[in-house]
């Protein structure tokens, strides 16, 4: 148990004590207590920066289930640490923001902060865990706490819908990931990520390699809202805004990015990984930016923008993985630029997207609406909010002097490098990558402008707002201000960040190239294609924004049935109705149908396995001779059985059953089993008497004495079962592999003092069976007694009423 373990588990401890604090100190906003957790962890984690920047890593192990190779081991390297710093840093800001955003009086704050702390702890554990099972545990915990947070206002229908949708999709991916983890264990015989990375060379050759890759990517893509699993993110916007800012822009949705980055050293350098990650990322980037433009709700716009930016980071991770193909040298360095862009944009996106969400929250809080059609002209009323918004948006659009510009330039460098690749069939499709990226960036520019200008410029419409608009309190403005300062600060001193954060992260993603990265980020690097691409974006983007009214109607022409959300909804509905149909089809409620299934399955499974495994064999060498009278008795047996089946009267059937039982007793006599014969006779008589008792009580009206009609299917099944059982009995007789153990019981007199061997077995050698049979009879007797008594008691009470 190291200090790091304690700090990782600190949020869970807070989750336990928050409700107590909430009840004990009703006057103080609970958020103030909560703030200590992320701030403290952030401060503690900062102490690891010098170590990680120096290229070192540490590992703290704590055995949890050692026999199953499951350890709560924490591994601190550049990737994990920077993620953890983002989580706790933005977490602190979000908690601070939520203190002012959520009302102390109206909201159930203890619930909110418990969920939030659960989430924070889970996220920290996820990014720092070295053990895959523990990682999966935290992964699912983030899904669950996210589910709880989205449905925080659970009285709203939309919240519940969004929570359910995100739960279904992310847990689906989580299960796929679990399968991938198990496959990892099969391939590498370890759950430790570090040990798996050291075996990367052997893993590539394994048969399960591709399957593991796809399952792992399913997990990553669902969590990070990649196409076509992005549909849960816009619906998750029903959560309170601090949650959206924290989970759905800065942390949880980056868990998939983290996973992809973490496993790049294993999968990177293969063609499948390169193409899947790059293509899915680019499609997500393009699709998200395209759809963001048409949104009328600010949060929905930001949700699609998040999707698009996550796609950008994902595609960069895919393109950068090509660096591993070369395994070092200049070409590798060239392509590692994409990884640099990915990690850089990851940090940048967390800063500006967090601040934008908080801005939207402020606008919502102070005007009562997030609808772009109702908003406008807020610039002079909310100047500080406007400033923050314009910094965030322009950074998102990729303009100087904000950090988004730097990462967008690097992004273009990455795409151009990827386009010039001559491996993985890139000659054919490579040229598409920069084009798609560029078009997507144009749309990004357009929606960034929409976000700022439609909200803060234009005509002020006070009559359409629910509240009187005014500037937000300072407490609410402070967190986005901090993030905005970071946005500008990173632009001017990117290399500080690069040295302390980005280089260690790249070292984790591309371990073979460690120490040879060429990372010097500069805002101006001459008249290169990237710059012209940015200028093109600005020009075309401005033109598109100014002519927005002329082409926005195009979106309305897209049929609703074509959307993925529609496919999800109708898919769910169809799954429900389909499974109901299947259930109704076979669960008829009739015992005779279920018996049919049982018998048919018996015939199919037992018969088929005997037939296929060549189990039928008939051995006649040690069969006893049959006498004539035994044959006649057997004929009587068959006759009585036929009488039971064919008769049209119930009483005749009972007599037939009696004859049957007596003849069976007679066979016991002939086969020298006196005790069995005695018991059989007594039991047969009693049961015949019981049948007669029952008949008297059968209701008169529904009495059907005409017998059942012939059912061909039943006949076939009955014949098949009879034939099968007969064949099995005959085969079993032919398959006597070892002598019976009955010789042992011949010493019954010496061992138990009994000359009746059957009774000696029943009461001495195997008396436990007898004891339990006595219990069975006792239970049956008590059962019959209580059934009759209860029925009589009920009848009596009915009469009293």
């Amino acid at each position, binding site marked *: 148990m190291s200090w790091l373990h304690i700090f990782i588990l600190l949020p869970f401890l807070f989750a336990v004590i928050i409700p107590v604090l909430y009840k004990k100190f009703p006057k103080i906003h609970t958020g103030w207590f909560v703030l200590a957790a992320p701030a403290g962890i952030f401060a503690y984690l900062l102490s690891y920066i010098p170590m990680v920047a120096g290229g070192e890593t540490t590992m703290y192990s704590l055995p949890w289930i050692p026999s199953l190779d499951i350890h709560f081991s924490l591994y601190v390297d550049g990737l994990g640490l920077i993620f953890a710093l983002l989580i706790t840093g933005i977490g602190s800001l979000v908690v601070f923001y939520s203190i002012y955003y959520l009302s102390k009086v109206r909201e159930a704050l203890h619930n909110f902060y418990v969920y939030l702390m659960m989430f924070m702890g889970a996220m920290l554990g996820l990014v720092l865990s070295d053990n895959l099972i523990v990682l999966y545990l935290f992964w699912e915990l983030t899904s669950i706490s996210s589910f709880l947070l989205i449905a925080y206002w659970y009285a709203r229908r939309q919240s519940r819908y969004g929570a359910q949708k995100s739960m279904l999709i992310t847990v689906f991916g989580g299960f796929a990931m679990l399968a991938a983890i198990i496959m990892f264990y099969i391939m590498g015989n370890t759950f430790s990520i570090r040990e798996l990375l050291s075996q990367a060379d052997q893993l590539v050759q394994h048969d399960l390699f591709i399957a593991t890759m796809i399952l792992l990517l399913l997990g990553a893509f669902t969590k990070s809202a990649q196409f076509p699993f992005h549909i849960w993110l816009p619906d998750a916007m029903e959560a309170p805004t601090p949650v959206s800012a924290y989970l759905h822009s800065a942390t949880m949705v980056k868990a998939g990015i983290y996973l992809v980055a973490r496993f790049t050293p294993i999968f990177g350098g293969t063609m499948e990984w390169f193409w899947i990650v790059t293509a899915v990322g680019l499609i997500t980037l393009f699709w998200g930016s395209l759809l963001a433009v048409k949104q009328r709700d600010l949060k929905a716009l930001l949700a699609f923008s998040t999707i698009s930016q996550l796609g950008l980071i994902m595609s960069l991770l895919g393109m950068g993985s090509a660096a591993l193909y070369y395994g070092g040298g200049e070409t590798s360095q060239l392509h590692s630029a994409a990884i640099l862009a990915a990690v850089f944009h990851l940090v940048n996106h967390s800063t500006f997207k967090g601040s934008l969400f908080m801005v939207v929250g402020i606008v919502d809080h102070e005007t009562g609406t997030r609808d772009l059609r109702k908003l406008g002209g807020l610039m002079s009323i909310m100047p500080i909010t406007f400033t923050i918004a314009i910094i965030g948006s322009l950074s998102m659009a990729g303009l100087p002097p904000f950090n988004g510009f730097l990462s967008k330039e690097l992004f273009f460098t990455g795409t151009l490098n990827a386009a010039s690749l001559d491996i993985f069939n890139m000659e054919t499709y490579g040229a598409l990558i920069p084009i798609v990226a560029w078009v997507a960036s144009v749309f990004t520019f357009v929606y960034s402008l929409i976000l700022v200008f439609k909200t803060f410029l234009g005509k002020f419409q006070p009559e359409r707002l629910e509240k009187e608009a005014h500037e937000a309190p300072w407490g609410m403005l402070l967190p986005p201000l901090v993030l905005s300062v970071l946005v500008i600060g990173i632009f001017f001193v990117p290399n500080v960040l690069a040295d302390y954060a980005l280089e260690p992260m790249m070292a984790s993603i591309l371990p073979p190239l460690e120490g040879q990265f060429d990372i010097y980020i500069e805002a101006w690097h001459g008249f290169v294609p990237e710059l012209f691409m940015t200028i093109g974006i600005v020009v075309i983007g401005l033109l598109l924004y100014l002519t927005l009214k002329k082409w926005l109607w195009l979106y309305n022409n897209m049929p609703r049935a074509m959307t993925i959300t529609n496919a999800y909804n109708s898919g769910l509905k169809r799954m429900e109705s389909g499974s109901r149909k299947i259930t109704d089809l076979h669960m008829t409620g009739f015992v005779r149908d279920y018996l049919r299934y049982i018998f048919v399955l018996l015939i199919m499974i037992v018969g088929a396995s005997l037939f296929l495994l060549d189990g039928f064999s008939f051995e006649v060498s040690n069969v006893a001779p049959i*006498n*004539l*009278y*035994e044959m*006649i*008795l057997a*004929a*009587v047996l068959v*006759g*009585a059985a036929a*009488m039971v089946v064919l008769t049209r*009267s119930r*009483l*005749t059937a009972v*007599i*037939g059953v*009696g*004859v049957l039982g*007596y*003849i069976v*007793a*007679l066979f016991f*006599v*002939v086969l*020298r089993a*006196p005790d069995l*014969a*005695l018991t059989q*006779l*007594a039991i047969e*008589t009693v049961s*015949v*008497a019981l049948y*007669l*008792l029952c*008949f*008297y009580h059968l209701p008169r009206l529904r009495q059907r004495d005409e017998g059942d009609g012939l059912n061909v299917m039943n006949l076939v099944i009955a014949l098949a079962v009879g034939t099968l059982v007969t064949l099995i009995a005959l085969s079993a007789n032919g398959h006597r592999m070892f002598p019976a153990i009955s010789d042992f019981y011949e010493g019954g007199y010496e061992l138990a003092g009994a000359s009746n061997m059957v009774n000696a077995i029943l009461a001495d050698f195997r008396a436990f069976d007898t004891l339990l049979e006595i219990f069975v009879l006792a239970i049956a007797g008590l059962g019959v007694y209580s059934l009759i008594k209860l029925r009589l008691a009920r009848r009596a009470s009915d009469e009293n009423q």
Partner: protein
Amino acid sequence: MFDAVLLVMLIMLAISILVGLYRAIQGPSMADRVIALDLIGIMMIALIGVVSIYLETQAFLEAILVLGILAFIGTVAFARFIERGAVIERKRD
């Protein structure tokens, strides 16, 4: 020789049980069937006796006694059922 006689007896008894079964199946009225069942019971007593001699054992003598009692009880039970519709009547109070 004696064994052969016993075998012939066994076969004849088995045939009479078969004939009893014919009556039980065919019997136009329910009483015919009940009598046939009683007949089969009695035939079985005889058959068990012969089998005991044939196997030279006394182990089946209890079976003969029990069967005698049960065949009687069974016939009475059926008779009551046919006569009154119930085997055991409830107390009238």
